[in-house]
């Protein structure tokens, strides 16, 4: 009987220890995002909130509806609510600097997911190596386009630029030119501004294609604009598969579900892939480590090296792309 009592007592103490351990580790995290307009943000939002909830943490979600002032107010509200840490997808690089400063001055650790501040020396910054990823994707379509074109022909290239207040957009633009500049004398480049907005991209792309109807190559700074590109290209006979007359070599960046389907269908030739799950995991690990370690102002840059999925490596690397994983329903 005594043995049984001791066993039960020991079990209860052990269980108590586990419960206490769990509750001690459970944190309240404020997750503030600027919007959920693209597949990338939706998938990132889901990965972060689900993982935090599964680990027993409390998540306070704040959607700023693309308003930087509202996001700053929401972050201040989160701080007032006594959250243990903040993960933010900022509206742009400038507002990210202000937000990181606000959190760090209140001794709240903060991680910036995917869209880095213009000053990356403060806060945990998880970001893709946009320049290298874009360069890899554009390298592929440049080489393919040149191989198919007569040696003396100058090719027309379009780049759809993102919001240049976002360092991601700047990196992608730099990556595009790094690839194009290897064959500088062979390309005329037209820049189309999108401001990360489909309607803006549609209007500007229509104007660009009307002015320059012959397009050989296109790079979009984000995959979410492929449906917009299709709506402009299809009526003009530019939305074709390889081998069909009028096929435009196309590449994007993100690695979303739509891009995966379009690469499989052949309309798109390559896309730069950000490892969404790596970035979400890195953000969570870094913020939780800072909270557990009592570090109020952690400063760290975590870089996602990414890669380019092309028609050449589709067979082997398809399932490394998050959009293809989602497309396969996994």
């Amino acid at each position: 009987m005594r043995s049984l009592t001791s066993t039960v007592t020991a079990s209860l103490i052990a269980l108590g220890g586990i419960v206490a351990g769990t509750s001690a580790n459970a944190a309240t995290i404020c997750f503030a995002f600027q919007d959920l307009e693209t597949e990338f943000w939706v998938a990132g939002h889901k990965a972060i909130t689900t993982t935090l909830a599964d680990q027993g943490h409390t998540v306070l979600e704040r959607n700023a509806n693309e308003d930087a002032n509202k996001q700053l107010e929401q972050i201040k509200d989160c701080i007032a609510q006594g959250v243990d840490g903040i993960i933010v997808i900022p509206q742009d690089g400038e507002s990210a600097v202000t937000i990181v400063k606000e959190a760090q001055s209140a001794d709240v650790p903060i991680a910036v997911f995917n869209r880095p501040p213009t000053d990356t020396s403060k806060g945990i910054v998880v970001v893709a190596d946009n320049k290298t990823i874009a360069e890899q994707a554009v390298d592929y379509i440049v080489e393919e386009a040149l191989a198919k074109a007569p040696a003396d022909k100058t090719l027309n290239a379009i780049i759809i630029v993102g919001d240049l207040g976002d360092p991601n957009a700047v990196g992608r633009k730099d990556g595009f030119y790094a690839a194009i500049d290897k064959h500088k004398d062979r390309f005329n480049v037209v820049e189309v501004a999108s401001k990360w907005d489909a309607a803006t991209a549609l209007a500007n792309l229509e104007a660009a294609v009307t002015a320059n109807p012959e397009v050989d190559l296109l790079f979009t700074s984000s995959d979410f604009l492929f449906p917009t590109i299709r709506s402009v290209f299809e009526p003009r006979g530019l939305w074709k598969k390889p081998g069909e007359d009028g096929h435009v070599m196309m590449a994007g960046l993100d690695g979303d579900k739509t891009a995966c389907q379009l690469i499989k269908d052949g309309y798109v030739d390559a896309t730069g892939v950000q490892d969404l799950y790596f970035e979400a995991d890195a953000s969570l690990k870094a913020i939780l480590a800072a909270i557990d370690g009592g570090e109020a102002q952690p400063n760290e840059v975590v870089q996602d090296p990414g890669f380019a999925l092309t028609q050449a490596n589709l067979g082997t690397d398809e399932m490394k792309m998050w959009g293809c994983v989602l497309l396969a329903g996994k």
Partner: protein
Amino acid sequence: MPSAASSPSRKWASRLFLSDYFVLYLSLAYVAILAPFLPTLLNPANISNVLSNLWPLLVVATGQTFILATAGIDLSQGAVIAVTSVIGAMLIAVTGNAAVLSNAPIWGVFIGEQGGILAGSIGGIAVAIAIMMLVAILIGLLNGVSVAVFGMPAFMVTLVTMIVIGAVAIYLSLSENISNLPDAFVTLGKGDLVSVYFGAQDESKIPRKIIYSFVTYPMVIAVAVAVAAHYLLNRTVFGRQVVAVGSNKRNAEVSGIPVRRVIVAVFVISAVCAAIGSILYSARLEAGRPTLGAGTFLLDVIGATVIGGTSLFGGKAKIIWTFFGVLFFVLLSNTLNLMNLSAFQVDMVKGAVILAAALLDVLRTRLTRELT
């Protein structure tokens, strides 16, 4: 036998309903009801947040109050905020980012890699602010003259101004933000005059050294604007003329009130208030932003003013009402955040409250007529 209408309780309710302080009482009741369920609501940190969100909105809503008092509306305030934000920032930015701004028409003219043309110069910030005010005055004049002299509807005029001036703001920087503003300017949006240290807080896992701001530069600026506006609207002949124009334009004309001049003046006041709001918002976000004042901002401004009790039909406006309206509106936004509602739910509730306020306006007007 006294009728129901003249019973003491009915009289008391009518007095309360028509009181200048009705929305303040409503705000206090709202806080009293929610405080037990939202323990964070009365935390010093949260009170400090509510105050910091209140001041810039109060300045802009003060300008809108003058317009509504004349039975008009100014939809261009957001665009004035945007364009003056960009203009001010391009003049005083300490450095310019070529990677971001080199294609913008202002690059090399008003701003370069060495910063804005007034960066570092003595009195540069004051000159930039004066230019922001001048631009606002010109926009206000444009609106006012179009409405007062050409007889165009205020809604249509300010809608067009909103679109055109908003486009100019975006064109100037090609929609890019202009950061690296000087510290002295940023202080106007976030600087403290009196802050209180409450000691280390141990609610969160990491103890914090928390210093809460209570008396800030935005507070001083907003209170100064509100007091001046209160004096102008409620203690001067001009203020009485504004209300008279809103009550009945024809009667005001017959009475010899310079209606056109009054209407032009209120649009100028509205634009200047928007420009002062622009200083506070730009300094707080530490950047000139061509998208400031976009989205649902106008809903906040007009909503807060109407909640305060300023009539959409004109002829009834007080700055103290606007202050209480802004306070209630900011409290509402804050508490909805503390309830962890989504952004969409927050906007739905805000819209419903503004609708209720508009309905209250109708009821109060009817009750006032019954009692007089």
